[in-house]
């Protein structure tokens, strides 16, 4: 579905369902350099299980018009633009990596519009190495290699993909190859620069973390999870940073458990 946000095309995957104002809404926000299909299985599930799904392509990613937004705050504000375009008063948000920071910042800025958030593969602060940033700034292949290799658990290239016949490294590289130059760098810089006291985050927060995550290991999220008053943590034993692909069922089960606490008969606007 195409929406207009700030006068530009904003694409949202809806799992082939028309928006139903009688259903609660789940917004999915992807990580650096990715797009909505990173949540393919999980977003589809909720679309067929009583939720409006808006799996967004952030500006400059996937099918949404650019330019990319330079800060996590700007992305959070853009997300409210998406809700406004659909006349949604409040929604829950699922974010992965950079998208998890966007979810946190959205809850921080407009707590009245965010019911619950699930943060997948997140750390705070989300510092990015100089070498990674510099390679991304130059749009070098090394940056895509870092994103791909560090973005998965070490066993991924030698192990079986839960999604039959797919090669996770190849998929990530193919996604990154479609990015316009500079987009990955902008995303990584936004993560690196983001700072907040999270004072406004009062809603329930679920953290889904991969024990083998090389980019955002669970220990790097510990201070954040302890700081938030209403947080719960699920650690997925065999997954790295790409939890939706590496451990799709564990990730989905955690999300289902967390969001099943929302009544599905409550209007979303």
């Amino acid at each position, binding site marked *: 579905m195409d929406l207009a946000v700030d006068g530009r095309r904003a694409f949202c*995957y809806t799992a*082939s369902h028309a928006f139903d104002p009688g259903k609660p809404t789940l917004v999915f926000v992807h990580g650096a350099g990715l*797009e909505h*299909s990173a949540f*393919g*299985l*999980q977003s*589809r*599930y909720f679309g*067929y299980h009583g939720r409006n799904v808006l799996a967004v392509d952030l500006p400059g990613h*996937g*099918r949404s018009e650019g330019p990319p937004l330079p800060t996590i705050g700007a992305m959070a504000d853009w997300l409210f633009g998406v809700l406004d375009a659909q006349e949604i008063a409040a929604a829950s948000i699922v974010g992965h990596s950079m998208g998890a920071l966007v979810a946190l910042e959205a809850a921080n800025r407009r707590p009245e519009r965010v019911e619950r958030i699930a943060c997948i593969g997140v750390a705070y602060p989300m510092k990015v*190495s100089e*070498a990674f940033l510099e390679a991304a700034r130059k749009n070098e292949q*090394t940056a895509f*290699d*870092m994103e*791909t*290799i*560090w973005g998965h658990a070490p*066993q991924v*290239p*030698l*192990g*079986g*993909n*839960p*999604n*039959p*016949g*797919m*090669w996770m*490294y*190849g*998929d990530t*590289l*193919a*996604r990154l*190859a*479609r990015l316009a130059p500079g987009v990955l760098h902008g995303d990584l810089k936004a993560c690196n620069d983001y700072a907040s006291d999270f004072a406004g985050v009062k809603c329930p927060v679920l953290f889904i973390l991969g024990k083998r995550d*090389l980019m955002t290991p669970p220990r790097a999220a510990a201070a954040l999870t302890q700081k938030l008053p209403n947080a719960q943590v699920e650690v997925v034993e065999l997954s790295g940073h790409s939890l939706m692909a590496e451990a*799709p*069922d564990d990730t*989905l089960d955690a999300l289902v458990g967390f969001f099943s606490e929302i009544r599905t008969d409550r209007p979303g606007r």
Partner: protein
Amino acid sequence: MAGPKYPDFDTLALHAGQSPDPATGSRAVPIYQTTSYVFRDTEHAASLFNMERAGHVYSRISNPTVAVLEERVAALEGGVGAIATASGQAALHLAVATLMGAGDHVVASGSLYGGSHNLLGYTLRRFGIGTTFVDPRDLDGWKKAIRPNTRLLFGETLGNPGLDVLDVPAVAAIAHDAKVPLLVDATFTTPYLMNHFGLGADLLYHSATKFLGGHGVAIGGVLVDSGRFDWEASGRFATLTAPYEGFHGMDFEEESGTRAFLLRARREGLRDFGACMAPMTAFQILQGIETLHVRMPRHVENTRAVVAFLAKHPQVEKVVYPELESHPDHALARRLLPKGAGAVFSFEIKGGRPAGRKFIESLRVFSHLANVGDAKSLVIHPATTTHYRMSDADLVKSGITAGTVRLSIGLESGADLIEDLDRALNVAAKQAAAKP
């Protein structure tokens, strides 16, 4: 944090796609000889059918053993994924059927395996898909053959029978200018000898029966997608970018982006055409792939020795192999195939059909049969077998002569292979001398 490093080809050939079996600890890939998989409950079943969860439902669509092969070949080729099929021909058909329908059009190299030529030139035409065949070396010919309804450019990385080396970067550029993908049959080059996707191909397939399996024991194919072709931006592929009534109105590109082609190929192509691979076959082909990086250098080494021998033999009219300077694609082969131009080639024996027949019948190590890419050396004389009904003039039109002999060089001792060929050539020469 150490710098990023991908596992090397040799390691992927042995490990990609499989962890030790979590149920038993089995190090070897288990053969999941089952048609179907028990659901945890009805909700789980519904989620699997509706693609909300990953997993297996029915072995025509996916199977754990077959999935290891698919992931391994995808890893070796650098693709997003793969689908294993009942044969290489099934892989070609699956690719075409996923991309187009009646009224659409393919531009294909004229130097193709006979089965592929038949499929495109005769069988698919009956279903409304037309093909224009072009000289693979004629880049203008490729361009001129493209029509508004063209959906695919297709060629073999090493063509039949003249071992034309497909200029993959150039033909890929032509395809991309026309907003269509390039599909290559990579059977003769394998992922070891050519970096197909790195050179610009978008899709590829193997007859896994040949070098991937490598031992002549199983028929199979593998179709691999690079994930690099942007179907949405092209605007020419309704099968991937428009809602599909056959799967709850799914728009495959919107649903899965880089995986759209494989998703439709699996969810429609395997579901409806059903040309899936059996788990035992996948296991057998995997055994071959585990030594692909060891076998291919030896295949090439033996081939070079045999080619050098034949090129100087008085009973040989000419040898057709891209590593020879006399081959029209010699320079291209050096650029695209730095590890070697494969292990299948042809030569022309003096004395025509009688000499060819006598030569074949005098060989002891080479096996006379219709296959290539085996660990054992193979030979066939088209004029007395596959093309025996053709006149000498018609043979020339097909790119061969009455004296053309095709060899697939195996892993035996190179010296023994040369001795076998030398003896058979000498017998053929005596026959030719006795019956001029």
